């Protein structure tokens, strides 16, 4: 299916698809107002779980792929209660500490082969596989976005005290989101391990996290498609265009970030950005269907 691509392009595509999964994980926490620096720690848990099962046991590949998100999710669930008691910068610090503790454990443990990492993981993940997983993820994200849980998540992010007053269990919403986000990050880690066949603790560093955060912030919290479209757009820009690799790359990339932040300070999926187009659409619709109970003309609404 992807034979027409050269190996470099193919590699970049797979990288972007796995990155998308990490972006989804971060979006899931941002969506409920959790600022978590832990996703790469969970990705490491997933990656090492899959790698160890594949190299040390003769279990089939799928066992590792199921165990990785389960273990990452379980660790997330275990540490969610203390972390969710924290606020703001302290919550970020708590998640950073958790992530670092995981990486240190991996680095000093014999079972994980310390700083050298694990090589010889069977290459089982191809592009079709990644696309299938992403498709399922997107369907689940959209179902959740439109459900009562999605509404509650949004309410919690926008104003947690008011959400609580309306009967939303703040802790439950955040706990579920944090745990699922950990599992998704674990899945991303496992896929990455089975794609590159080599993992080491060094690859879960801060640099990768900064990129993921940038994409999620540019994409905004309004809808999950925002961060994902930004991820794909930015990847295309960085890898495909003529200036890739030249000095211009960083300059243009930086300028683009500044422009987007100026135009859309709350990210590209911010609702208020689309107020005017939506108003216009509404007036268009009411003109075409004069028989329906007249929706408000914009003039009556604005005050």
């Amino acid at each position, binding site marked *: 299916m992807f034979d027409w691509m050269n190996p470099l392009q193919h590699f970049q595509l797979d990288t972007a698809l796995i990155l998308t999964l990490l972006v989804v994980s971060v979006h899931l926490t941002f969506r409920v107002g959790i600022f978590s620096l832990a996703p790469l720690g969970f990705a490491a848990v997933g990656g090492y779980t899959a790698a160890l099962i594949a190299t040390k046991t003769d279990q089939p590949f799928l066992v590792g792929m199921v165990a990785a998100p389960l273990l990452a999710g379980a660790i997330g669930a275990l540490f969610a209660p203390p972390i969710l008691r924290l606020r703001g910068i302290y919550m970020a610090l708590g998640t950073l500490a958790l992530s670092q503790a995981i990486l240190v454990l991996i680095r000093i443990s014999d079972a994980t082969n310390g700083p050298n990492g694990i090589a010889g993981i069977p290459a089982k993940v191809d592009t079709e596989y990644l696309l299938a997983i992403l498709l399922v993820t997107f369907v689940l994200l959209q179902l959740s976005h439109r*459900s*009562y849980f999605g*509404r*509650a998540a*949004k*309410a919690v992010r*926008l*104003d947690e*005290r*008011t*959400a*609580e*007053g*309306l*009967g*939303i*269990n*703040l802790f439950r919403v955040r706990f579920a989101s944090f745990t699922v986000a950990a599992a998704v990050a674990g899945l991303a880690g496992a896929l990455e391990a089975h794609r590159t066949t080599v993992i080491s603790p060094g690859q879960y560093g801060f640099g990768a996290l900064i990129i993921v955060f940038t994409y999620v912030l540019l994409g905004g919290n*309004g809808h999950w498609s925002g961060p994902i479209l930004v991820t794909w757009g930015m990847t295309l820009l960085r890898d495909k265009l003529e200036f890739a690799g030249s000095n211009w790359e960083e300059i243009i990339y930086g300028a683009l970030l500044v422009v987007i932040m100026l135009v859309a300070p709350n990210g590209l999926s*911010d*609702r*208020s950005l689309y*107020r005017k187009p939506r108003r216009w659409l*509404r007036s268009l619709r009411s003109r075409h269907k004069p028989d329906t*109970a*007249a*929706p*408000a003309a914009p003039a*009556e*609404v*604005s*005050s």
Partner: protein
Amino acid sequence: MAALLELTGVSKSFGGMKAVDNVSFAVAEGSICGLIGPNGAGKTTVVNLISGYLRPTAGNIRVAGTDVVGLRPHRLAHVGVARTYQNLQLFDESTVLENVLIGRHMAFRGKRWQLGRTRRREEIEQHEKARHLIERVGLSNVVDVDVAELSYGMRRRVEIARAMATEPKLLLLDEPTAGMTRAESDDVGALIQTVNAEGVTVLLVDHNVRLVTEICHRVVVLDWGQVLTEDGPTEVWQDDRVKAAYLGTKEHKFAHLEAPDAGR
């Protein structure tokens, strides 16, 4: 009639300051009770105590026979307490419908794992209920408009609809007519009366003397964190202490300084 809301000896101090001092009153089920008093009397603190945002330093609060002291706000919502906020607390990035739908959140309890057609039917049912509430507060022409685009009076109504969406037994309204024109506050008054006619008990905090006199069955007057008096809505204004609290007398202004243990 039985009391739906009962406060006994409730106090709340912030540091050394007693914002609410040994307050006791009861609101009969099915009534509209006004809670009035000059600025800084502790009205909003009382509302925050009842709705679980603050925990009293002393005393007891019962709603529908349940001791609610120490319950988190979301548990209180399940007991049947809903409120509006003095400074509007709407979800600004959302439409009117979405705001009211969040109020329907509790209706999804126990139906978490429904999928497919049952789930869809549930969603449609909740959407219909939300639309019905929006219609009742007179906003059906702006259902799909972002609340940030609405006028102040309209936003106040969205907040009332959202509180009603939780199907409360007790509705706490913290200055629902603040900043409204006379016509707008009359509309809100009529709305409160129809809500009350359906059996919802209302505790109304407001500065609008005319509104409180017209629609409340009882009025509790608060001053310096203490209950000054409790009486019928017209009788309460005959009380010299109430007049003094509102209009001020020399003695009243400095009363709290002369009796430090009673002041705040």
